[in-house]
């Protein structure tokens, strides 16, 4: 078991290094000159040269990489060109906002979709199943930004139940914050229910026709026990893995929701940074999101044996 954990963690480290390398190279490929951007159009050649020297842009690429990695490991992601604030602080602040939307949405979606998916599998071919699958397919075919827009139009503009723009941090004022969070979370929720339900249904179906389910029934156990004790644990693995992928994808994907509801989140930060050619900020966001993705998947992998002990053995 410990060997399994050690191996997985060991594999994550080179991945993180490669991620950092990839981000570094990618940002260096973005056309333009950071120094010119910082000093503006009117700068003369001498100041540009001086700034480049100061930013360490004249050193060789490997050196730059090592210097930058060193900074990153100390938590210093540089200074944002457009905001004049430390990148790390900005990212962290915005991440907290995005997390308030993404985490509750995925959690609630899982709590709703997994039982429904298992129900659909149990009642395969019958009306319940068909209705659930049709609903799920429909939900995941509606793009999140459109769904958000429609919800906004109806519940906020027309009915006036929720505010249209802006955001209030949960720490400041819980009740107010909730009002701002309901629509964005609902939007994400509906989409993810579609995805998770289908995945749960598919993996449960695969398990249900295996011998050990018949064997469990042959012992005289109730259907409920068979489904929950025997089918669930064995079939949850793929869904669990999917959850990790979803969380990672949403860290960037939430940008569209943040745009619709005008929420100052991490996704929007990255998009704005791209528009502004804010290299340190782009670099920081890419690195942060990709690293979180790797870590989330690592976490998912490490907990996988709880559902399927066979994984730890190999």
């Amino acid at each position, binding site marked *: 078991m410990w060997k399994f954990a050690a191996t997985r963690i060991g594999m994550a480290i080179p*991945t993180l290094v*490669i*991620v950092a390398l*990839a*981000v570094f190279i*990618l*940002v260096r*490929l*973005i*056309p333009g000159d950071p120094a010119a951007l910082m000093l503006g159009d009117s700068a003369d050649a001498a100041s540009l040269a001086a700034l480049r020297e100061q930013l360490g842009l004249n050193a060789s690429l490997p050196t730059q990489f090592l210097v930058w990695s060193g900074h990153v490991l100390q938590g210093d992601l540089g200074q944002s060109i457009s905001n004049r604030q430390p990148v790390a602080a900005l990212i962290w602040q915005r991440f907290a906002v995005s997390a308030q939307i993404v985490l509750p949405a995925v959690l609630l979606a899982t709590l709703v979709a997994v039982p429904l998916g298992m129900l659909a599998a149990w009642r395969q*071919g019958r009306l319940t199943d*068909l209705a659930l699958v049709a609903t799920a*397919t*429909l939900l*995941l*075919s*509606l*793009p999140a*930004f*459109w769904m958000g*827009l*429609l919800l*906004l*139009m109806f519940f906020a*503009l027309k009915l006036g139940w929720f505010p249209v723009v802006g955001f209030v941090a949960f720490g400041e004022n819980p009740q107010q914050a909730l009002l701002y969070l309901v629509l964005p979370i609902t939007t994400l929720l509906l989409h993810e229910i579609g995805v998770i339900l289908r995945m749960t249904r598919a993996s449960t179906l695969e398990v249900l026709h295996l011998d050990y389910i018949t064997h469990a029934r042959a012992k005289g156990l109730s259907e409920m026990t068979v489904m929950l004790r025997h089918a669930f644990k064995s079939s949850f693995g793929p869904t669990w893995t999917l959850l990790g*992928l979803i969380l*990672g*994808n949403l*860290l*960037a*994907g939430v*940008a*569209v929701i943040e*745009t*619709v509801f005008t929420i100052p989140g991490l996704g929007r930060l*990255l*998009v704005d940074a*791209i*528009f502004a*050619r804010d290299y340190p900020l*782009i670099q920081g966001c*890419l690195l942060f*999101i*990709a690293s979180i*993705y*790797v870590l989330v998947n690592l976490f998912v992998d490490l907990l996988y044996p709880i559902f399927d002990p066979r994984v730890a053995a190999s």
Partner: protein
Amino acid sequence: MNRRSLSFWLGAGLVSVVVVVALLATFWTPYDPLKLDFKTRLAAPGWQHWMGTDELGRDVLSRLMRGTATSIRISISTVFLATFFGVLIGALSGYLRGWPDRILMAINDALLAFPGLLMALGLLAVFGASASGIIIALALAYASSVVRVVRGTVLGLRERDFVRASRVMGNSETYTLLRHVLPNCIAPVIVMATSMCGWIILAESSLSFLGLGVAPPAPTWGNMLAGSRSYVSQAAWLAIFPGLAISLALLGINLLGDALRDRLDPRMRRRV
């Protein structure tokens, strides 16, 4: 008609409608999608303009049709590109194994460490937001998934007895790969390509929506939706139709993909 064929025909039907509209729009639209006409700004859907007009008096239906053409063109190009390279690399990697496989897989896993949209965003910063930029960015972002699926399939096929039989017969590795392995990868690749179409259309519209897609005034589904935000209270139709178009396209692709997956998978393992 059972559920599976309902899924197939409904999906195929929706997809065909979208493709036909896209093809049509390259030659003809009811109005010029770029033509401004301030007199008919923000007109509600009616006889003159079936889907109404936007804030600059442009006909929404025409813009939507043109946007369909753009989105389809970008998506199909991306899928082809990603599939072609994905199959090439995945098949070689899975069949040859050894050092080439390990290196390619290390790179692929690193690419997979970036969520698709994130990588697309990053690459767009490099390539710039143009049609070809988007195609390259999205293809690179999603090719690694194809590589993984193809490699997995090839690894499985390598152990199948008919591949071994080919080698025992004395056929070269190249011949075996081309004649026996690749043709048997088609089914999973088709299923994958269909799903990918859906992801890419969604990704392209999302990027468009964020302002990182094909630049206005050229219409895309995404940027039409983005533009509708300011007029949401006055002209709801500006938000409804583009979103509806994306949804129908995605629904069609998902239904078609489901039906294909059901049909293609069991066939390979069917026993008499």
